[in-house]
């Protein structure tokens, strides 16, 4: 094992990572993520697998990333949404309150109802933009700095202008462990 490792040696190849397209819906993308996160098709979920999905368009370009947070955030637009979503929710609440049925307004929808309602939400409407990428031949130190400066946990790795995989926070952790155990 070489003393100096590069990003190329640690990355998770694209073929092993969850990928979806911007036009697919939550109902299509979430089961894919769940399968990889749980790592086994049936039985107990090991929760040791990947926690995000790369969003790649038809041309093969990486356009975004989806993680647990942005999936959950779409369920509470009146709290986690932007100003526009908050004002819309306010307007709806006012409308229902003025009709003497405040308990029917959207703010009181159950968790289950919100999930079903968002089943057809398109990935492109909720995906996060990529906040940092790295080249496959870059040093681990560059990867570490990028991770903390941009506050991300997953870095897409490029070889030329093609995405070939991702480097995760956990991969760097495993390298730390390897070094300490060897020493």
């Amino acid at each position, binding site marked *: 094992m070489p003393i100096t490792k590069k990003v190329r040696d640690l990355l998770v190849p694209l073929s092993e990572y969850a990928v979806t397209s911007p036009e697919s819906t939550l109902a299509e993308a979430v089961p894919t993520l769940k399968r990889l996160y749980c790592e086994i098709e049936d039985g107990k979920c090991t929760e040791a697998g990947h926690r995000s999905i790369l969003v790649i368009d038809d041309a093969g370009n990486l356009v975004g990333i989806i993680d647990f947070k942005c999936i959950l955030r779409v369920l509470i637009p009146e709290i986690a949404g932007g100003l526009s979503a908050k004002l*819309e929710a306010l307007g709806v609440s006012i409308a*229902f309150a*003025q*009709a*003497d049925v*405040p308990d*029917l307004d*959207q703010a009181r*929808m159950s968790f289950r109802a919100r999930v*079903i309602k968002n089943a057809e939400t398109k990935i492109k409407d909720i995906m996060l933009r990529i906040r940092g990428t790295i080249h496959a031949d870059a040093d681990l130190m560059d990867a570490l700095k990028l991770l903390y400066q941009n506050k991300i946990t997953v870095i897409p790795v490029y070889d030329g202008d093609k995405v070939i995989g991702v480097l995760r926070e956990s991969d760097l952790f495993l390298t730390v462990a390897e070094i300490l155990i060897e020493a």
Partner: protein
Amino acid sequence: MTKLNKLCLAAGVCLLLLTLWAQPALAENAAAAPQAGDGYPWWVWPLLLLVVTFVMGIAAVLGGVGGGVLFVPIISGFFPFHLDFVRGCGLLVALSGALAAGPGLLKLNLASLRLAIPVALIASTFSIVGAMIGLALPTNVIQISLGATILGICALMLTAKKSEFPVVPQADKLSSALRIYGVYQEASTGQVIDWKIHRTPQGLLLFIVIGVMAGMFGLGAGWANVPVLNLLMGAPLKISVATSKFLLSITDTSAAWIYMNNGCVIPLMVVPSLIGIMLGSFVGVRLLKVAKPGLVRWIVIGMLGFAGIRALMKGLGI
């Protein structure tokens, strides 16, 4: 009695006493109108409008009564403004409230555009008719009919039932032809159900009456739209409420233009009222999250009834 209820009761009683005490002064001012200067500087009125509409906005949300139906009776009853200007202002206030709620209701697919468009065609056409009638009839006739209508609205609000998910055995010919149907999601379970409507021709006929009344009196028509959509035509309550609010934006647009083109809009009155009601509604919704006020609806309907009686008396010259 909860704290909020006690507060609302106290506020209502204070307001009532205040208006009864101020009655002679306001009446004198109204009678001595043509002279400049009521003794109050001009800016007192917009400020007073702002405060009163702010309280009205809160009361509308807590009491489950539309802001549009409160404005004209209460402002015309207790302020010296002529009914023409109050109606013009009231329509703009109701319109803005509906415009503000519109995007959310449409985007969340609570208001049905397919249901709204045919209804709006009828309602907006006849609100133009109502506005023209309302501006042509002498003021005391309008006052009397306004008073009577308000008392009717109070009775309707106290007695009308609501049906969360009415049973519609079969969609009628007209609604099928127009393809007015949709899916409805139960808020608690997320269960998705199909809804359809019936008795569409009868409903549309009633909207003629509703349109005329909205235009004639400058009232928001939510108190009428919801029962017709929900109880008569069988749309789910959630869809009815949302579509009704959205409908107001169309009905009141046409009536507001008629009043505007006839000079019945005084900007000094309109803007503070608009701001007041909107701010009041925001605060009202916040309060609603904290406590469910049981008594407020009775107080609000009571004030509305009181305003209706005043309008009747004004019209009859008592």
